[in-house]
């Protein structure tokens, strides 16, 4: 297992490099620059600013400079938030996004799996139809529609929950963003769980377990669940990626001070170091969490553990 992890980490390094290089050059290729909006600035002031952020150098040199700094753990200064370094901004944004993302993941897993298992156990009965209809809806309606509708109903009409703001991650501020973020994943996970459960319960070894005289709950818990969870674990990587990208939109809609907001703001104002900082964090998180998913998979399925 250890050699598996270290090998995967070794592959992760070039992957990360490619992602960083790709984003770096793509961003420079996009039209506009960080100081375009400030039309009132004198040209020589802009020149000085550009020089201060190394923007006057050839792109390749800028990249090497950036990489050299990054290796020392320095994300550089933010261009728009002039009083902050990117590291400081990430330190503000990351905990917000992590808390939001983890809560949404947990909620999605809990509800997705439960709905899927019950839908499978009561196949073609009303529980099945109701859960799968919810899943279809959750799957079909995008987050930028769900979120405003939720805000409208629970925030403005019913006045039950605040419509925006973080408030240090207070429960009432978390509810709506978490629901909006988890909903599409609940939809996918419940369908995935249902399918997996139906597939596993058809297997010969389930019949064997019943033939041994095990009660059904032991058959399901002892012989089915691990196999049922395998496709879910495989989906964990994409699910996490989905929640992260979803978070970018949701943070914007609910005005939450997370990574996603800095990413969007950075991109809009061409704050190159800020965007690069968020990209590096996002990419690292996705790579590590995918690795975690693979490790869990290997733990669950003895057949892949060998390799």
């Amino acid at each position: 297992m250890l050699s598996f992890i270290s090998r995967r980490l070794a592959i992760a390094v070039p992957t990360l490099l490619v992602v960083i290089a790709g984003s770096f050059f793509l961003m420079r290729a996009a039209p506009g620059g960080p100081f375009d909006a400030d039309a009132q600035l004198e040209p020589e002031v802009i020149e000085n600013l550009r020089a201060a952020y190394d923007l006057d150098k050839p792109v390749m040199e800028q990249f090497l400079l950036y990489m050299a700094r990054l290796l020392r753990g320095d994300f550089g200064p933010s261009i728009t938030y002039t009083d902050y370094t990117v590291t400081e901004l990430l330190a503000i944004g990351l905990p917000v996004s992590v808390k939001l993302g983890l809560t949404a993941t947990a909620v999605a897993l809990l509800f997705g799996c439960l709905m899927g298992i019950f839908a499978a156990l009561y196949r073609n009965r009303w529980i099945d139809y109701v859960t799968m209809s919810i899943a279809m809806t959750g799957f079909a309606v995008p987050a930028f529609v769900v979120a405003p509708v939720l805000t409208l109903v629970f925030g403005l009409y019913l006045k039950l929950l605040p419509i925006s703001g973080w408030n240090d991650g207070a429960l009432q501020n978390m509810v709506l963003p978490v629901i909006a973020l988890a909903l599409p994943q609940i939809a996918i996970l419940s369908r995935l769980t249902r399918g997996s459960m139906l597939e596993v319960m058809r297997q010969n070894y389930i019949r064997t377990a019943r033939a041994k005289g095990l009660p059904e709950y032991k058959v399901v818990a002892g012989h089915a669940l691990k196999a049922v969870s395998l496709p879910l674990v495989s989906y964990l990587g994409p699910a996490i990626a989905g929640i992260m990208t979803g978070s970018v939109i949701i943070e914007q809609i609910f005005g939450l001070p997370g990574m996603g907001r800095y990413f969007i703001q950075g991109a809009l104002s061409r704050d190159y170091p800020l965007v690069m900082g968020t990209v590096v964090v996002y990419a690292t998180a996705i790579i590590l969490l995918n690795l975690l998913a693979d490790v869990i998979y290997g733990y669950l399925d003895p057949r892949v553990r060998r390799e």
Partner: protein
Amino acid sequence: MATGSVEKRARVAPAAEPATVLECRDLNVHFDTPDGRIAAVNGISFDLKRGRCLGIVGESGSGKSQTFLGILGLLASNGHAVGSVKLHGEEILNVPRRRLDAIRGEKLAIVFQDSITGLTPHKRIGEQLSEVLTEHRGLGRTAARAKVLEMLELVRIPEAEKRFRMYPHEFSGGMRQRVMVAQALLCQPDVLIADEPTTALDVTVQAQILKLFKGLADHTNTALVMITHDLGVVAGLCDEVMVMYAGRVVEHAAVDELFYAPRHPYTRGLLACMPRADRDSEALTAIPGQPPDLAALPAGCAFAPRCPYAFERCEAERPTLSLAAPGHARACHLEALP
């Protein structure tokens, strides 16, 4: 239904007839499919006595497996069993799950036909087998382990200690099959149903397993149901045989009786297909034609399209199982085979 059981022909001194363990009466199994109802098993009756062995033979799809899956309550979700099955005089067909759980694996055990895929892939072999003993006998881990190791050695799993901690994918097909046999024997069941238990095994292991079954029948009171394509296995192991065709029993007799004086054209056909030492293997004949479609069975004898002796009555009227000689039942309109 015509037969209860068929008396075992006295090979040895006719001791008192052993007690009946399993009594099956007029068992039917059907499946509901989008294309309509499939009657896979129709009106099967038999008695199984202590320490005796009943062979079930018949072509693929004749309903051998579904008969016993029905008895055990293990049919696919679209399957239903109707009739009566009594274990030690107590009804067990369509009883609540809790009742079934107490019987399955403890009094009624089965070795499945496709046992290669019958073991849970993510659970250690030792755990899977021990579970039977913890469930039915309330044994602790160490006691269960000792018993399981003993049983694994009995079915000739080499290095049982090491194998105990392994996963199914680390076992060969033949070894998995033997593990399934060991699992079924753990509680010394009153009835052991073996559904083609030797098909995946090479000839030597096959012989060993059959010897094990034979010993089981002779030394314990376990009654054995041997489902097989191999009439040689039946000849060597069983006391009586039921021949099935299209979900019905077409002949039921003591083994010697059936082999030397078959009374159904289908049985005769099966016997003719049997490889024998005195015959060139190339002379092997298969019964010409295909087994019938269970969803569209003819009104008369299901074997009629393939039967060399079929006459008008066969197409019009379905023959019922009736005694042709003492202890020898068959379902055919012919008084005697030509």
